[in-house]
């Protein structure tokens, strides 16, 4: 019986009928004997080899910093010709009338930075910790930071090499607020109530107040809250951690009377905002840091003498904010800036004792990840000493 | 006995983008009890539409259809009609047995209607061994046999089939028509079963039917009716007989010519 012969199909073996799978395997298999995983492996290894080559070359070059023209020859107290320099200043929060911010805004608008030969780009930190990231990456050279945060970051693992070079707030603005009609009059009344804290755990000043006022912490329910003051007005918490220059005024304007608790009243040492930079920048460009500080402090002093104009300038950076509230914030922080040693020595002054007291408090309440090997490396008053004479700011 | 199906002056017009499509035009047809009738015609002549109207799935635009004196809707309600379409539409997540049982689950009866037990039906269509298989494990022909079993659950007196073997390959098609005849013979031993069978295959139409109805091109009317006087039971040898070839030639001529 005739049958069609298919091309390229091997004849079946004469014994038995039909085509067996085994035969196909033997005769039809013509794939290469090379293993199939070799090619993908080589493709994967090739880019790695290239990277290693590139890395070996590049590691001989110095790490780049973001300051472009900042190769000015360091002249600590240069007068006549100041090499023009640009830098980025990142304020550690949204635009508002925190005193270090005000100093920078005014210095910018009144040309003080310019007089110091500085071109300053003012940025604001949008997310928490962003200012430190920018500092480390070299995208910003100077920032603001709370004094306790400076110590906290330095003690972290990994540690952030940040250095404070001026202490604007001689006392901190951390405090606590309760609704005036809540019946809570002293910290002892916090027992049996709910306290709200921001950040990841209750702050050391909270713990210190409890200690100082003899409050039993186990009787307080502590909850983590966000930034909305509504948690207090909606009575989700009875006690709220606040910034004394901020929320009490905001709540007051919303029609809620609050009572505040200031750690200073309980003998708890807190420090306020600082101007800060990275260790490497301070080491390489102490002159620029000094010029910046001079201009910013002049800005603060100018604002002190011309508060209305200063608030006008702030509102240019923070157009949506309430004028009266910004005024309140400014004046509250200004009062804190003129307290203590700053009275005689000038705004921004700082002492080793202040930092030691703060450090001791933070250590006692376990706010630091670990002890600092060298506390004095966290701050530098060199610039302050150079620009102040008998408490007067040298200008230019 | 009066006829089982009576179609009088059946017309169907579909609204089609403004220009109405006349699919059936005053079609007349009679089918007797227990008859196996093929319906054949050129594409678009309305054979499927005719079947759907008889089955109660479409309403006619004009004319009437009587099934044992009732309207198709009523016959449908009485479960007196079984439907088999080109796509068996089995539910893939149910087993073969589960698919055949489905009509019983949807319409649980209280014993008033005579029933085929699902297991019996599977035996009838020759798929007892595959009761626990799922449709995707079956070939096209086997799936269609499940659909036929499913259509017979309530022992309907009328079976409507719309190109049931249209999606199958040639070899399976030719065996399936004899399978269908065998099933029909077994099933009607209980009660007479009238079958209306739509197809476009001449050989199929002749093999299965007692009569072949030829429709005109659209709009469809009855062009001719041919009585198939071949003895039952039928087998493949019939397809080589002279009589068969004559019928086939007749049908081919009818389908090729233009109607007057």
């Amino acid at each position, binding site marked *: 019986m005739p049958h069609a012969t298919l091309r390229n199909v091997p004849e079946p073996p004469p014994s038995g009928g039909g085509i067996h799978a085994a035969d196909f395997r033997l005769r039809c298999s013509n794939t290469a004997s090379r293993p199939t995983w070799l090619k993908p492996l080589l493709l994967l290894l090739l880019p*790695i080899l290239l990277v290693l080559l590139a890395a070996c070359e590049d590691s001989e070059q110095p790490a780049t910093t973001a300051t472009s023209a900042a190769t000015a020859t360091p002249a600590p107290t240069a007068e006549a010709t100041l090499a023009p320099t640009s830098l980025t200043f990142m304020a550690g929060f949204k635009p508002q009338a925190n005193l270090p911010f005000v100093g920078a805004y005014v210095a910018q608008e009144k040309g003080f930075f310019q007089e110091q030969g500085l071109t300053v780009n003012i940025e604001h930190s949008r997310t928490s910790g962003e200012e430190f990231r920018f500092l480390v990456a070299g995208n910003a050279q100077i920032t603001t930071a709370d004094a306790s945060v400076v110590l906290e970051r330095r003690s972290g*693992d990994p540690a*952030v090499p940040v250095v404070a070079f001026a202490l604007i707030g001689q006392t901190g603005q951390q405090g606590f607020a309760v609704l005036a009609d809540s019946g809570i009059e002293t910290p002892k009344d916090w027992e049996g109530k709910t306290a709200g804290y921001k950040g990841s755990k209750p702050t050391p000043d909270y713990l210190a107040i409890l200690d100082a006022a003899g409050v039993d912490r186990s009787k307080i329910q502590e909850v*983590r*809250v966000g930034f909305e003051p509504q948690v207090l007005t909606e009575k*989700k918490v009875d006690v709220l951690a606040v910034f004394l220059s901020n929320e009490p005024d905001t709540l007051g304007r919303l029609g809620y009377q609050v009572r505040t608790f200031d750690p200073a009243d309980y003998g708890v040492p807190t420090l306020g905002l600082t101007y800060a930079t990275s260790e490497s920048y301070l080491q390489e460009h102490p002159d620029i840091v000094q010029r910046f500080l001079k201009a910013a402090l002049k800005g603060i002093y100018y604002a002190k003498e011309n508060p209305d104009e200063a608030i006008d300038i702030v509102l240019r950076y923070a157009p949506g904010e309430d004028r009266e509230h910004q005024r309140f914030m400014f004046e509250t922080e200004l009062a804190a800036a003129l307290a203590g040693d700053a009275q005689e020595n000038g705004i921004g002054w700082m002492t080793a004792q202040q930092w030691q007291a703060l450090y001791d408090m933070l250590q006692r309440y376990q706010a630091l990840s670990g002890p600092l090997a060298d506390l004095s490396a966290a701050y530098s008053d060199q610039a302050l000493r150079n620009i102040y004479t008998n408490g007067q700011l040298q200008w230019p | 006995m009066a006829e089982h199906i009576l179609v009088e002056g059946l017309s169907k017009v579909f609204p089609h983008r403004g220009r109405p499509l006349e699919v059936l035009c005053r079609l007349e047809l009679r089918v007797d009890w227990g008859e196996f009738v093929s319906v054949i015609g050129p594409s678009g002549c309305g054979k499927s539409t005719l079947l759907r109207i008889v089955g109660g*799935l479409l309403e006619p635009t004009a004319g009437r259809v009587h099934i044992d004196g009732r309207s198709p809707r009523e016959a449908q309600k009485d479960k007196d009609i079984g439907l088999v379409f080109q796509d068996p539409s089995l539910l893939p997540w149910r087993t073969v047995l589960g698919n055949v049982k489905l009509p019983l689950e949807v319409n649980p009866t209280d014993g008033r209607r005579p029933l085929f037990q699902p297991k019996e039906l599977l035996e009838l269509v020759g798929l007892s061994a595959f009761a626990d298989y799922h449709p995707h494990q079956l070939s096209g022909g086997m799936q269609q046999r499940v659909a036929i079993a499913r259509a017979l659950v309530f022992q309907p007196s009328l079976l409507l089939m719309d190109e049931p073997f249209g999606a199958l390959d040639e070899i399976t098609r030719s065996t399936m028509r004899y399978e269908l005849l065998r099933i029909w013979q077994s099933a009607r031993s209980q009660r007479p079963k009238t079958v209306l069978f739509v197809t476009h295959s001449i050989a199929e139409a002749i093999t299965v039917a007692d009569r072949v109805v030829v429709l005109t091109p659209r709009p469809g009317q009855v062009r001719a009716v041919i009585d198939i006087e071949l003895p039952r039971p039928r087998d493949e040898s019939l397809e080589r007989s002279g009589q068969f070839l004559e019928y086939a030639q007749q049908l081919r001529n009818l389908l090729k010519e233009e109607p007057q």
Partner: protein
Amino acid sequence: MTDVPLREPWEPLALAPPRWNGALRAVAGYALPPTVALAIGLLFWEVWTRTRDISVLLVPPPSRVIDRFLDRPGFFLGEGMTTLYEALLGLALGAAVAIAAAVLMAHSRLAERALFPLAILVKVTPVVAVAPLLVIWFGFGLWPKVCVAALISFFPFLVNAVTGFRSVNPGAMEFARSLRASPFQVFLKLRAPSALPYLFAALKVSLPLSLIGAVVAEWFSGDKGLGLVIFTANYQLDTPTLFAAIAVLAVIGVALNTAASLVERRVLFWHEAFREQD
């Protein structure tokens, strides 16, 4: 008539059988390529950060991340379980509401026209805007996170369920009509099984989304969960912890999806998507 139940005659003949145990080979086949790729990627990353002197405060080398995890694996896994619990609870809630709405919308075009714009509103609202409000309404515990996860899971389930309920084989639908099946019977026996493939697809989309939702919600309140770990580590520039937490989150996500896929294969064995064997 002889029946050939399984494959059509024209299917290719089987190739040579594998040399070792089939199951072992299958697992290796699935797990080995991504593991090798991951290992190579990590090597690449380690070399890059070390040779380019990149500050650990910006990008940590994998070795430090692994170290940090191994310092306290129980902590990371425990927080992971909290976040997982919130996410799954939220997903279940979102899916339930979505499916209920979909049943309504599949049966009534009016309901669909009325509800769909609302669903889009839910989808488009950024979670970070809503989360603080949820804290005010529901307190500091579990519920704001469950709500966020539910909100995120809602839309995929809604869209997929509606499409699924409508994707019934037309032939099967006609058959059901011929049986004069009630809408409820049609739903139970036709629509619901037809929708299963779509629901599983929605599940696989929503699982990682609900995890992310829970994580983001944890940024706003509460004292537990990987979200809080990430939030704190981010603030403290503790990148090794940050990356370790993210890695744990990723592993949880992969595990969830794998589990979902396995269940899907078993339940949807009949669907054409799963019938193509290599």
